[in-house]
């Protein structure tokens, strides 16, 4: 169900509001600079957790920002909310209403190509496959072999080798697994499809 989720719409220009108010497009740009606290090379926009920015129709001085958290227990969620408020205050927005939207659930499919490139350059293998499959797949009980199933090829972000091995399903955060490259021998994090 998550695969049909619409991408956030970024209005191209002025939304017709009073000139003293920053445009929504300008505020998207301001928020695009807010880094993820756990992986500071990518922004909250590139991760796909920033889902909407709009002026409140009922109260033109209030900006509504919609965020979809990554994992239910992600400890970065509260820090991200604080960072978003600070970035908007710096952009001249005094009143912000931060809304958390759970559904549709966040998926790595929402991560931008730019975000994936930055992850790779930072040394984290970006998510492969499609995240939608993780939540929606029916349980395949026939010939179950989790150890082998976990051995899908993940490209080493340092040397590009396909000869890599899963070390642990969880890394420094819940969203990452730990891998080791069998060619350059370096361990690395893999951002799991979600």
């Amino acid at each position: 169900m998550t695969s049909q989720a619409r991408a956030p719409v970024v209005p191209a220009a002025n939304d017709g509001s009073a000139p003293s108010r920053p445009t929504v497009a300008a505020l998207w740009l301001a928020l695009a600079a807010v880094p993820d606290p756990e992986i500071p090379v990518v922004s909250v926009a590139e991760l796909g957790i920033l889902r909407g920015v709009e002026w409140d129709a009922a109260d033109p001085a209030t900006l509504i920002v919609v965020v979809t958290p990554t994992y239910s227990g992600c400890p970065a969620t509260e820090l991200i909310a604080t960072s978003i408020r600070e970035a908007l205050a710096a952009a001249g927005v005094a009143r912000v209403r931060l809304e958390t939207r759970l559904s549709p659930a966040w998926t790595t499919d929402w991560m931008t190509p730019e975000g994936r490139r930055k992850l790779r350059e930072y040394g984290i293998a970006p998510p492969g496959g499609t995240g939608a499959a993780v939540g929606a797949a029916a349980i395949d009980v026939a010939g179950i072999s989790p150890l082998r199933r976990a051995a899908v090829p993940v490209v080493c972000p340092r040397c590009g080798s396909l000869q890599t091995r899963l070390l642990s399903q969880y890394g420094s955060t819940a969203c990452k697994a730990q891998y080791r490259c069998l060619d350059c021998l370096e361990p690395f994090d893999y951002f799991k499809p979600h």
Partner: protein
Amino acid sequence: MDPAAPRDEALFQYLLRLGDTPLILAQRLGEWVGRGPVLEEDIAQTNVGLDLIGQARLWLAYAGEVEARCAPAGRDEDQLAFLRDGGDFRNLLLVEQPNGSFADTIARQFLFDAWHLLLLRALADSGDARIAGIAAKGAKEAAYHVERSEDWVIRLGDGTDDSHARMQAAIDDLWMYTGEMFTPDAVELGLVEAGIAADVRALAAPWRQRVDAVLAEATLAAPGETYMQRGGKQGVHTEHLGHLLAEMQVLQRAYPGARW
């Protein structure tokens, strides 16, 4: 009386069950911090716990909102977690069982994860949109949890003589706590009827199929018919829950209302 009140009371009870089970299991997994057999597993264990705490917060926050509709006042997620006594907890008996060895912890996790994933996928179709949203999100996390716990059951079961024996003993010991996962009571059946709750009876066959497949690959024997314990969902717990709560709630009990 508001005609919706009896439904809300049942929904409140149901949400406590949904929230208390991951909360108590997360507390157990938290006991592993700094004690994992290897660093990677120490981290993995607590990352799984973190997912479960996040899910518990979402369920209990909703429970508190529903409680406000059918009781004089609703409690927030922290009040529900830290200021209830054992008899008011509605978690499954399985998750309050002590950590034991790594094999005991993995067996508990595996039996739970396989059920949890099925439950959350069923709840993703709930007629209650809030329940469906929390469940759909949690199911994606549970899919990784069960993959990890299955890996370990196979690795330890099909491992050394010692790891095999410990894994088999752990599965045998915990088996009697799996029955209540598939036994609904009146609270659940009423909500199943209303299209809100999942019918856990329908989860038994796919759960058993998956568990049997993994145990077979792990060279472990599935336990035979046995007496099944129950009571967790009604607040009748094993002696272990009180000790767990004493640690989990100590700060709020010693300094009521303390905040970060």
